[in-house]
C-alpha cells in the first residue's frame, strides 16, 4: 500500500472550487495520471463524506471518471461542500469544494443616522430570505449628490452585522446619496439609493444625571430632573424631551410627551407608596436654525423612586421590641416556677430537664384541654426515683 499522497498529486478534478446555483446540475471529472497505475473503474466519489452511487458515474477513459449531480442543495457549510475522488482503498486522490447557493437579493431597509452631526452610521437588512448559502460581502457606498466621487464605508466592525460606520469628513447642508451593494460568487445586487442631508438625521446621547425625587410629602407626585446632553452645547440646536415611567412590577410605560426643552418635570396623579421607574430621552431640534426634529436618542438608564405613604406605618411589625421580649420570658419563668412549686418535691431537683418536662406538659395540656381525663407526667424527684403524679 503506497502512503497517501498529497491531494492533487497526480490527480486533477475539474471544476476546481466552483460556485453553482442551487438546483443546478454539475458534472465533475477526476483524472489521474497514468503513472499512478489506477484504473478509473476502481475509483469512487463522495460528497460531504457520503459515497455517491455509481449510477451517477461516467467512465471517460481508463484514468478518468466523471460524476453527475442534479438539483444541488445549498452548501452545508460556508467553506464549501467537499466533493472528493477516491481510489478503491479509500485514499483521497483529489477534491473540489462546491459553493452552491444563490446570488444575493437587493438589500432593503437602509437607514442612517448621525450622532451629533459628527459621523454617520447605517444599517440595512439582506433582501429576500437573507440566507444565500454563500459568503456574501456587503459594501456601503456614498457620494455627495451634486459633486464628488463615490466612496466606500470601511468600518463594518461595530459589533452588529449589516451595519457600517463613517467616522468623519461629512459635509453638512448638502445631500448625500447612499446605497449598499451585496455580492457573492454568483452575482451582485444593489439596494435602492437613499438621499439625505446629515442634518436631517441627527440624534444625540440620552440625558445624563437623571434624578427622581419626591415633592415634599405629596403622595401622588414625583419630580424628575436631568442634564442636557453635553454635545448640545457645541451645536446650535435645542432639545426636546420625553419622559416615560412605569410601576415597578408593570411592563406598561406611560409617556409624557409635552416636556418641551425644560430639564425638569413634575409627574402627577401617581399612586402613593409605590416605586416608579423613570427614563428620559432627547431629540435635537432646531439644528442650525431649522425647525425640523431629529431622531430620538436612546432612553436614559432607568432611575427609580417611590412616592410617600399617606399615613404613617402602623406598628404591626413582626419582631417584638427588646423590652417586650424580656417580659415574655419573665412571664414564662413565673409560670414555670409556679408549676415547680406545685408539683416538684422542693427546688433541689431543678434542672433544664425539668424545664423541658414542663414545656411538654404545656403542649399536652393545651391539646387535651377539652378532654376530661388525666394528664400523666413522668416526674423525677430529688431522690432519683420516678414517680407519676396524676393531675386533674
Amino acid at each position, binding site marked *: 500500500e503506497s502512503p497517501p499522497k498529497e491531494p492533487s498529486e497526480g490527480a486533477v478534478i475539474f471544476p476546481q472550487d466552483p460556485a453553482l446555483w442551487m438546483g443546478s446540475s454539475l458534472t465533475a471529472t477526476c483524472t489521474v495520471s497514468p503513472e499512478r497505475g489506477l484504473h478509473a473503474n476502481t475509483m469512487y466519489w463522495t460528497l460531504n463524506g457520503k459515497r455517491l452511487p455509481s449510477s451517477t458515474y461516467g467512465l471517460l477513459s481508463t484514468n478518468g471518471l466523471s460524476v453527475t449531480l442534479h438539483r444541488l442543495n445549498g452548501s452545508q457549510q460556508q467553506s464549501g461542500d467537499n466533493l472528493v475522488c477516491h481510489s478503491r482503498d479509500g485514499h483521497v486522490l*483529489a477534491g473540489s469544494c462546491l459553493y452552491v447557493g444563490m446570488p444575493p437579493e437587493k438589500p432593503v431597509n437602509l437607514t442612517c443616522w448621525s450622532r451629533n452631526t459628527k459621523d454617520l452610521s447605517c444599517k440595512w437588512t439582506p433582501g429576500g430570505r437573507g440566507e444565500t448559502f454563500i*459568503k456574501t460581502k456587503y459594501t456601503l457606498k456614498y457620494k455627495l449628490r451634486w459633486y464628488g466621487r463615490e466612496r466606500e464605508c470601511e468600518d463594518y466592525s461595530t459589533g452588529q452585522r449589516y451595519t457600517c460606520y463613517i467616522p468623519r469628513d461629512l459635509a453638512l447642508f448638502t445631500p448625500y446619496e447612499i446605497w449598499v451593494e451585496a455580492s457573492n460568487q454568483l452575482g451582485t445586487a444593489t439596494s435602492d439609493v437613499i438621499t439625505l442631508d446629515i442634518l436631517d438625521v441627527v440624534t444625540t446621547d440620552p440625558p445624563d444625571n437623571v434624578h427622581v425625587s419626591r415633592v415634599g410629602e405629596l403622595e401622588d407626585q414625583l419630580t424628575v430632573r436631568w442634564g442636557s446632553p453635553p454635545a448640545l452645547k457645541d451645536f446650535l440646536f435645542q432639545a426636546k424631551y420625553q419622559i416615560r415611567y412605569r410601576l415597578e412590577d408593570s411592563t406598561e410605560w406611560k409617556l409624557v410627551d409635552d416636556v418641551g426643552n425644560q430639564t425638569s418635570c413634575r409627574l402627577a396623579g401617581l399612586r402613593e407608596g409605590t416605586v416608579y421607574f423613570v427614563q428620559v430621552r432627547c431629540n435635537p431640534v432646531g439644528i442650525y436654525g431649522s425647525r425640523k426634529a431629529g431622531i430620538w436618542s436612546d432612553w436614559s438608564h432607568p432611575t427609580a423612586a417611590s412616592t410617600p405613604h399617606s399615613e404613617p406605618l402602623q406598628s404591626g411589625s413582626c419582631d417584638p421590641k427588646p423590652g417586650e421580649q424580656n417580659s415574655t420570658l419573665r412571664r414564662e419563668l413565673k409560670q414555670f416556677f409556679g408549676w415547680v412549686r406545685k408539683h416538684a418535691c422542693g427546688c433541689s431537683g431543678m434542672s433544664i430537664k425539668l424545664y423541658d418536662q414542663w414545656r411538654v406538659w404545656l403542649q399536652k395540656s393545651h391539646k387535651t384541654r377539652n378532654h376530661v381525663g388525666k394528664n400523666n407526667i413522668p416526674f423525677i424527684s430529688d431522690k432519683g426515683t420516678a414517680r407519676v403524679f396524676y393531675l386533674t
Partner: protein
Amino acid sequence: MSGHVKNMCPQLPISQAARTLLSLLLVAAIDSVSAGVVCRKQPCGSSLQISLKLTKLIHKESADLLKTYKVSQGDMSELFCQMSINNVPDPNISGLDPSERMLSIYSHCKAFLPHLKRVTEQQTDLQPPSSSLLSKLSTAQNRTNGLANQINCIYQTLFPNLPIPPEPVDGPTSVPPSQNVFQQKVYGCVVLKRFKEFLSRVTRELRTLKSQVCTRRTTFADTNALS
C-alpha cells in the same frame, strides 16, 4: 560636598555602596535579552513547571481547536487529516542530550507559527466572521509564541554557552504557495493534527527535562556546572 548641596537633598542619603548594589541587583534581575525577549530570573524547577503548565493548556486547547476545525470544514473523513503534505513540521522532538532536545522544542514552536498563521488567513476567507475557529486559531498562535519565548529563556539560562541558531527565513519550514480550497482544507487539518501531537510530546519532554536538569542545587548561580 559643599554645604548648599547637602541642604538641597535633606531626605534619605543613599550611600554610594548602596547605589552600586542596587544597580547590580537590577542588572542581575534581567538575565539576558534575546530576540527582543527579556528573561527574568526564576529557579530552574519553577520555570520549567510554568512552561509545562502552559504546554498542557495549549495542548488541551489544540484538541478542541482540531475538533472545531473539522466541523467547520464539513464532513471529512479522517483520511484528509492523515494525508502527507510537504513542509509541515513533524511533531517529533529530536536530540540526544537535554540542550538539543530543548532547542528542538523551541525551533519546532517557531516552525509551527507561520503555518498556524497561514491556516488562520485561509480560514478567514472560508468561515463566517462569527466562527469560533478564527479566535481559537489566534489564541493558539499567541500562546505558542509565548511558550517559545519561555523555552528560549530557560535554554539561555541553563546553557549560556550554547548559541540559539537564528530563525530560518526561507527554509523547509516555509508555508506552501497558494492552494485551491480543497488543498487548504487538507493542509489546515494536517497542520493542526501535527500541532496537537507535537504538544503532547512537549508535555512529556518537559517533565523529563525537569527531572534531568533541575536539581535542588541548580539555581542560576550554578548553571556553569552544567555546561
